[in-house]
């Protein structure tokens, strides 16, 4: 998968959780929680959605440091390349 395809998959998982999220205006370098008002249940559903979209299981300990869209996409790309 290319980085763009991974980003698309991550955005699909995100908009399933937060339907009001607009991929066009979403800033990739700003914390998702601040932009979308997501809580811990949304976060868990986002992680589950990423798993369903690309098969990558993000451990709880890693998730805490993935705050922005760019960070999530980079992490998933890294895991898929490994």
């Amino acid at each position, binding site marked *: 998968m290319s980085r763009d395809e991974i980003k698309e998959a991550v955005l699909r998982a995100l908009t399933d959780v937060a339907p009001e999220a607009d991929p066009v205006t979403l800033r990739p370098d700003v914390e998702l929680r601040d932009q979308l*008002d997501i809580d811990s249940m949304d976060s868990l559903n986002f992680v589950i959605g990423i798993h369903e979209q690309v098969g990558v299981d993000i*451990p709880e*300990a890693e998730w805490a440091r993935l705050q922005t869209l760019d960070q999530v996409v980079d992490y998933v790309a890294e895991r898929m390349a490994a």
Partner: protein
Amino acid sequence: MADFVMPALGADMSVGTLMQWLKQPGETVKKGDIVAVVHTDKADVEIEVFTSGVLEELLVEPGTEVPIGTVLARIRENGAPAVAAPPPGPAPGEPQPHLLISPSARHLSEELGIDPSSIAGSGPGGRIQRKDVEAAAAAREAAAPPHPAEPALAAPAEPAPPAPATPPSPAAAPPPPSAAEERNVAMRRAIAAAMSRSKREIPHFYLGQTIDMSAAIAWLSQENLHRPVTERLLHGVLFLKAVALALREVPELNAVWQGDELVTREDVNVGVAISLRRGGLVAPAIHRTDELSLDELMHAFRDLVSRARSWSLRSSEMTDPTITVTSLGERGVESVFGVIFPPQVAIVGFGMLVERPWISEGQLLPCPVVSASLSADHRVTDGHRASAFLAAIDRLLQEPDQL
């Protein structure tokens, strides 16, 4: 013959609008079946029946607003003789009297501005479901004309005529509120009524306790390490279970205030405060919270949050809470001082998990802690019993594997 009445789905609900019938006269219903959808200021709620039998007669037309307690339908209980043949359904060719549509689908269609009558339902009996609305939205998007292309570089053959001068409009009227905005206003009104009543009638008192969460967090981290992502637990589930078990020890807090007296409840149905996107709040119950394993509770919690945010709650979830738990730590709040949701008599609040210096067995250590609070009704209990309740929550959270 049993009456099926408009239920009271909230502290200050006095009327509700019957939106649609999901069963027709002559159909068999059993206890727990969803038979109708009712619109209140806070939500569209799927209404369950509490009698098994045959739906004999529908007495209220969809779209009608009626006071709580109004008989909506009659149910012939199992074993009872039939008293009349069910009224015939609409003749072929007659328009259906109402749309079969789930609350979630109705809400989404309003949000997206799609006329639900134009959507083919794929659910039982042609009921329109959320996925049908999503499909209709996708079809509309696909059929929409493409975005205008970049303006052509070539100049038009003739200059366009100047636009006619329009007189300045005198104070243009604001656009009418959208369905979502109207819902938010109605919900705010319902919350205002319930909270005003609470503060007016209930003599609140407040207690707080800081709880060492190191055992709970260590256990949870280990537990989640071995679980697939779909089975992970959130620490909020530990709070819910600890509160539910603590209520067994202080049962007067698992209760409602009716008329002038305390009515304790047998079942522990913890209400969970769930914030809705774009504002608003509901606090539906997880039934028999104390009897659920942590896995079952997590499943129920996820399901409840998902349905609350897609406007698909059930009537019993709105009417049955015996206490409410609110967690506001997500955005950094350390302490919560809750307002009791009447007719309940207590609300438990949890703040953010924070690391604090903590003295344990003579040693100063960094320790994850949470501030737990209790707002309780002084008519039914006192500080001593209430503090025993918070102490029980603390004690239970020290042995998370026993929850």
